[in-house]
C-alpha cells in the first residue's frame, strides 16, 4: 500500500506547479530599476597575444555607459581554484592565474576580452562590435598528448609546461601493480576516450549585480547551484568584499548538471561593474555563449589494463589517463579526474591491487570541470568496458565474470582509499536480470534478426561515492573548503515550519522531498513545511548541491535541526502537561505523556513557545528555531546494475535503444517518484553521451560543435521507456536517514551498458575485430567500425 505522505510517498512535486505554469522566478526574470546591460566581447581565436584593445570608437556610441577591459581588473584577484592536487612527486599542481577579463593573452575561443555596459543589450552588442582588438594569433594546442609533448606552445607562459599535475594513486601500489600485471595469466588492455560534453542546462547562465552606495552592500543574483560558495569565492578571493556585505541569491535555476557549481568571471564582473557604474548590471548568456563559456565535462583519454587469473579473478588494475583541464582551472576541476575518479576504480569488485595515473593538461579550449557524475562516469566507463572485453577474450559470460569478483562483505576497504559501508551487488544484479528479463534475450534477438536488425545486450555495474564528504578527509585531499551542510528550522507560532537549507534545488525536487521528511518527523501535513534555499541572506551557510549530496548531507542537517526542535518542543509539552520531559512522545502531531491519555497538539506547543504565558522560562528560552551543521562521517556508496539492449541497422550503423533497465540501490528512499525521475534524466544524459553528444575542436581551437546544428542532444524519441527499480535497499549506515543519493547514478551507469550492447551486437554478427568504438556511437562511427 503506497503511503500518501511522509518518507516513502510518491508525493507530486510542489515546485512543478510554478515551473509548468510559467510562474517560476528565474534570474533572467529579475529586472532592477535603472539596470544596465553587459555584453562580453569574446576571443574568436583560441590562442593569441593581446597587443591592444581600442575602445575609443565604441565608447562614443549611443547608449554606452562604460567599457571595461583587462586593465580595469589589474590588481584585482582572479578566479580562484577550490582544490589543490599534490602530484606523485609531492609537488603541488601548477595553478595559473585566471583573470576576470583577459590580460596579455587569450587562451580559448570565448575568453572574455572586454565588457560593454550599456543602456540596452543591443547597444552593448553594437558597441562591442566597434571595439578594435589588436591580437597576434598564436598556434593553439588542442590535443592533450601533444600539449604535454610539445613544449613550444604553452597555454600559460609563466608555467613550466602544459602539465597541471601528474598524479599517482596509490603511488605506493605502483610497483606491485606493474608486477602483478606482468605475471598475470591474462591481461586485457583497452584504450578509449571519454569525450568532452557540454552540460547544456535548459537555462543559460545569467548574472545581475547590484550595489547600494548608501550601505555599501552588494547583491548578486546568479544561476548557481551553491550561492554561499560563490559568495565566499567571489567575496574573499576576487573582489575583496566581506561576506556580511555581499548577498548572493540563486532563485529558480533551470538545471545545472554541475556547470552551475563554479564561480564564473561574469558573476564577478557584474558585481564589480555595479559599483563602478553605480547601476545594477545584468548579463544574460545566449546559447552560443554558453557553448564557449560554461565549463564543459569529461574529456579523458585513457589506457586501462586488467589482470586476471585463469579463473577470471581480478588480480590488478592499472589505468593511465590524460584529463583535459582546458585553458584555466575551473573551480573544482583538479578534483574531478583525481579524487572523484581514482577512488572509484575498484568499482563493485574486490580487485586487490589498483594504480591510477592521471595527467591533467592545459589546452586552448574551454575549461573542463564537474558534469553530472564528475569523474565517476569516467571511472565506471573504463572499468566496465575493460571487464566486458576481458570476458569476451576469456570466453566467460560477462555477468558471471562480474559476479565472480563482486565485493560481498561490508564494510569493504578498497585499495583506492575508500571504505564502502553497505551494498549488495548480487541483489541488484539479480533484480536486473528479473526486470530486464535477461533470460528472454535470445528470443528477442531472433525477433530482431527477422527484421534484419543486429541485437546486442550490454550489462554493467556501477558504484559511486556521493554525499561528499567528510570535511577533514577532503581537506587532506586538497579541498580548500569544508563539505558539510547546514539547515535552520524555524517554527512559527501557529505551527508552520520554515526550513532554510544550504542545499540548492534546481530540478531535484527538494522543496517536496525535504518537506516530506519534516512532515514525517513531526507528524504534520507537508503543506505546513516551507523549504527555503538559494539566498545567503536567509540560509545560514550552504555548500550547495552537487555530487548527489543533497538528501544525504543537506537532508541530514535538516534532520539534526529538527531533532533539536523536537527535543525543545517536548520540554514545552512536558511543562504544559506537568509531566517529565522523558515521558513525552510525539506522534502524528500530538504530544502525549506515555501511559496516560494526556495530550497537547503541536500547535499548542508552538504557540506557547511564542506566547510564553505558561512556559518554563527559567529553563528554556522562548521561541522555536534551531540550526544544525552536519558533516558526514563517510561518503555514501549508491550502486547498481544496468542493462541495455540495442538494435543496430547493419546497412546504416544506426543504433536504436530497444530497452534499458536499471536496478539501483540508493539506500532508503524519500520519494520514489522523484528518484525515478532523477534516474530517468541521468540515463537520458548517459545515452546522450553514448550515442549522440560530442564536443569537437579543430586543430586551431575553433569549436565545431557550437550549436545544436552540430551538437546532438538526446531527444525523447532517442530513448525507450526505461525499466527502473530501486527496491534493493541497503541503507547507509552513517547518516540519520540511511540515504545514499540518486542524482548522478543514471549518467554514471548507462554509457557502458550502451557501448557494451553495441559491441555485443556487432560481435554476434561476426564483426569479431570490433572490440571497442569510442563514444558517441553515431551511425557513421558504427558503420565505419563494421566496415573496418
Amino acid at each position: 500500500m503506497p503511503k500518501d505522505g511522509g518518507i516513502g510517498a510518491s508525493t507530486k512535486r510542489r515546485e512543478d506547479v510554478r515551473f509548468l505554469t510559467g510562474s517560476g522566478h528565474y534570474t533572467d526574470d529579475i529586472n532592477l530599476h535603472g539596470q544596465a546591460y553587459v555584453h562580453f566581447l569574446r576571443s574568436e581565436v583560441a590562442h593569441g597575444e593581446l597587443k591592444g584593445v581600442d575602445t575609443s570608437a565604441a565608447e562614443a556610441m549611443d547608449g554606452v555607459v562604460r567599457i571595461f577591459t583587462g586593465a580595469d581588473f589589474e590588481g584585482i584577484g582572479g578566479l580562484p581554484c577550490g582544490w589543490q592536487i599534490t602530484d606523485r612527486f609531492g609537488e603541488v599542481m601548477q595553478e595559473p592565474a585566471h583573470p576576470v577579463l583577459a590580460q596579455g593573452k587569450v587562451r580559448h575561443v570565448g575568453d572574455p576580452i572586454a565588457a560593454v555596459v550599456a543602456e540596452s543589450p543591443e547597444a552593448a552588442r553594437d558597441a562591442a562590435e566597434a571595439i578594435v582588438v589588436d591580437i597576434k594569433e598564436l598556434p593553439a594546442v588542442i590535443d592533450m598528448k601533444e600539449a604535454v609533448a610539445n613544449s613550444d606552445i604553452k597555454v600559460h607562459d609563466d608555467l613550466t609546461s602544459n602539465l597541471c599535475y601528474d598524479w599517482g594513486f596509490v603511488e605506493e601500489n605502483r610497483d606491485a601493480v606493474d608486477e602483478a600485471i606482468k605475471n598475470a595469466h591474462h591481461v586485457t588492455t583497452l584504450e578509449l576516450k571519454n569525450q568532452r560534453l557540454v552540460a547544456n542546462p535548459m537555462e543559460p547562465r545569467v548574472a545581475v549585480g547590484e550595489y547600494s552606495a548608501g550601505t555599501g552592500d552588494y547583491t548578486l543574483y546568479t544561476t548557481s547551484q551553491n550561492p554561499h560558495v560563490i559568495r565566499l569565492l567571489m567575496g574573499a578571493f576576487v573582489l575583496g568584499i566581506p561576506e556580511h556585505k555581499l548577498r548572493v541569491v540563486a532563485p529558480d535555476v533551470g538545471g545545472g548538471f554541475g556547470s552551475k557549481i563554479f564561480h564564473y568571471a561574469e558573476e564577478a564582473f557584474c558585481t564589480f561593474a555595479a559599483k563602478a557604474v553605480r547601476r545594477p548590471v545584468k548579463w544574460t548568456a545566449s546559447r552560443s555563449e554558453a557553448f564557449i563559456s560554461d565549463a564543459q565535462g569529461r574529456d579523458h583519454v585513457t589506457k586501462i589494463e586488467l589482470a586476471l587469473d585463469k579463473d577470471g579473478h581480478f588480480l590488478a588494475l592499472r589505468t593511465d589517463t590524460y584529463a583535459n583541464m582546458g585553458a584555466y582551472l575551473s573551480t573544482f576541476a583538479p578534483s574531478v579526474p583525481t579524487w572523484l575518479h581514482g577512488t572509484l576504480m575498484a568499482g563493485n569488485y574486490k580487485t586487490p591491487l589498483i594504480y591510477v595515473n592521471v595527467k591533467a593538461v592545459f589546452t586552448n579550449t574551454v575549461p573542463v570541470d564537474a558534469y553530472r557524475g564528475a569523474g565517476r562516469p569516467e571511472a565506471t566507463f573504463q572499468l566496465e568496458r575493460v571487464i566486458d572485453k576481458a570476458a569476451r577474450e576469456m570466453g566467460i559470460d560477462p555477468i558471471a565474470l562480474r559476479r565472480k569478483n563482486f565485493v560481498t562483505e561490508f564494510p569493504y576497504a578498497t585499495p583506492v582509499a575508500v571504505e564502502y559501508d553497505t551494498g549488495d551487488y548480487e541483489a541488484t544484479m539479480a533484480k536486473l536480470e528479473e526486470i530486464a528479463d535477461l533470460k528472454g534475450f535470445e528470443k528477442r534477438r531472433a525477433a530482431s534478426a527477422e527484421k534484419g536488425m543486429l541485437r546486442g545486450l550490454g550489462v554493467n555495474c556501477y558504484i559511486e561515492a556521493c554525499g561528499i564528504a567528510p570535511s577533514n578527509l577532503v581537506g587532506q585531499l586538497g579541498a580548500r573548503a569544508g563539505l558539510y551542510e547546514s539547515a535552520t528550522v524555524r517554527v512559527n507560532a501557529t505551527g508552520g515550519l520554515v526550513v532554510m537549507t544550504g542545499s540548492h534545488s534546481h530540478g531535484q525536487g527538494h522543496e517536496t522531498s525535504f518537506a516530506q521528511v519534516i512532515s514525517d518527523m513531526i507528524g504534520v501535513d507537508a503543506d505546513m513545511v516551507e523549504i527555503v534555499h538559494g539566498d545567503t541572506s536567509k540560509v545560514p551557510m550552504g555548500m550547495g548541491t552537487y555530487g548527489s549530496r543533497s538528501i544525504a548531507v543537506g537532508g541530514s542537517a535538516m534532520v539534526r535541526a529538527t531533532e533539536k526542535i523536537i527535543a525543545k518542543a517536548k520540554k514545552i509539552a512536558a511543562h504544559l502537561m506537568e509531566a517529565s520531559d522523558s515521558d513525552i512522545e510525539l506522534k502524528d502531531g500530538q504530544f502525549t505523556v506515555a501511559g496516560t491519555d494526556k495530550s497537547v497538539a503541536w500547535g499548542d506547543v508552538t504557540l506557547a513557545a511564542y506566547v510564553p504565558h505558561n512556559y518554563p522560562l527559567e529553563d528554556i528560552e522562548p521561541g522555536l528555531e534551531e540550526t544544525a551543521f552536519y558533516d558526514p562521517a563517510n561518503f555514501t556508496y549508491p550502486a547498481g546494475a544496468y542493462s541495455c539492449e540495442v538494435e543496430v541497422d547493419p546497412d546504416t550503423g544506426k543504433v536504436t535503444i530497444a530497452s534499458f533497465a536499471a536496478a539501483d540501490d540508493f539506500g532508503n528512499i524519500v520519494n520514489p517518484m522523484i528518484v525515478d525521475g532523477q534516474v530517468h534524466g541521468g540515463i537520458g544524459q548517459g545515452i546522450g553521451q553514448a550515442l549522440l553528444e560530442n564536443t569537437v575542436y579543430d586543430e586551431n581551437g575553433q569549436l565545431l560543435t557550437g550549436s545544436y546544428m552540430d551538437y546532438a542532444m538526446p531527444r525523447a524519441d532517442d530513448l525507450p521507456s526505461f525499466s527502473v527499480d530501486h527496491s534493493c535497499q541497503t541503507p547507509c549506515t552513517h547518516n540519520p536517514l540511511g540515504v545514499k543519493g540518486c542524482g548522478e547514478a543514471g549518467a554514471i551507469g548507462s554509457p557502458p551498458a550502451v557501448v557494451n550492447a553495441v559491441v555485443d551486437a556487432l560481435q554476434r554478427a561476426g564483426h569479431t575485430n570490433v572490440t571497442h568504438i569510442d563514444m558517441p556511437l553515431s551511425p557513421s562511427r558504427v558503420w565505419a567500425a563494421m566496415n573496418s
Partner: protein
Amino acid sequence: MYAFNIERPSTIAGAVDALAKDEAQALGGGQTLIPTLKQRLASPDTLVSLTGIPEMQGICTADDGALCIGGATSHAAVAAGASAYPALAALAGGVGDPAVRNRGTIGGSLANNDPSACYPSAVLASDATIVTNAREIAADDFFDGLFATALDEGEIITEVRFPVPEAANYQKFLQPASRFALVGVFVAKYADGVRVAVTGASEDGVFRWSDAEAALSGNFSASALAELSVPADGMIADLHGSAEYRAHLVKVMTGRAVSAA
C-alpha cells in the same frame, strides 16, 4: 539582430515592388533567415514578408493533374493538404519539428536551397516546375549548387507545380544533431521513367542519380540497384559522416525508397 524595417505586402506585385528597393530581402517562414539575423550574419535594411499574400497560399490541382502549391504555403499545410501526392505530404510532415513546419514555407526552402533541405529532392525527382513572378523554371534548371538557384535578385517563387507520379517515396537519414538530411533520397516513378534525387550528400547540393534512374526505369525494384555504387568523390565529409558513408547511404536510402514507394 540589427534593426530592420519590415513590409507585409498583400499581393505579389506589391512584394515585387518592395523587393526592388536597395537592401531589401524576402522573408518566407524565416526558419533560416531569422537565426541568421539573430547571429548578426546578415543586415538587410528591409524584410519583405511573403506570408501575407493570399495568392501564394494553398494547394490545388491543375487541369493537367499537377499538384500546385503556393510558394508561401507552410510545410504543415502541405503535410495536411497534399493528399494527392502522399510522398510529398510525408516529406513535408518530416521537415524539422512542428514549430518549423508551421512557419517554414516551400518557396522559402527552395529559394534558400540548403544542401541538406528536404524539398529540393522532391522538386527535382518530380520534375516540378518552379513558377515565379516572372517565369516558369524547370527543376533541372533551378538548383545551382549550395544555397544558389536560378532565381534573379528580387524574383519570388509564387507556386510550385508537381506532376503526380505513379509511385514515390522519400527516405531521410537524419543528421543526429540538426536532424536535417544527412542523406535524403526522393524516388518518383512516372509513366516515362523513374527519377531519383538526392539531398544532403553532395558538395554540389541536390543531384539526380542517373545510374539508378536508368536501372529503376527498367526494373522498379531495390534489387535493380545491386550492381550500382555511388562514388565518394564530391560527397560532403564532416563531423557527422565521411564521404564514403554518405555515398553508401545514397544507395541504401534509394533502395528503401523504392521498396516503400
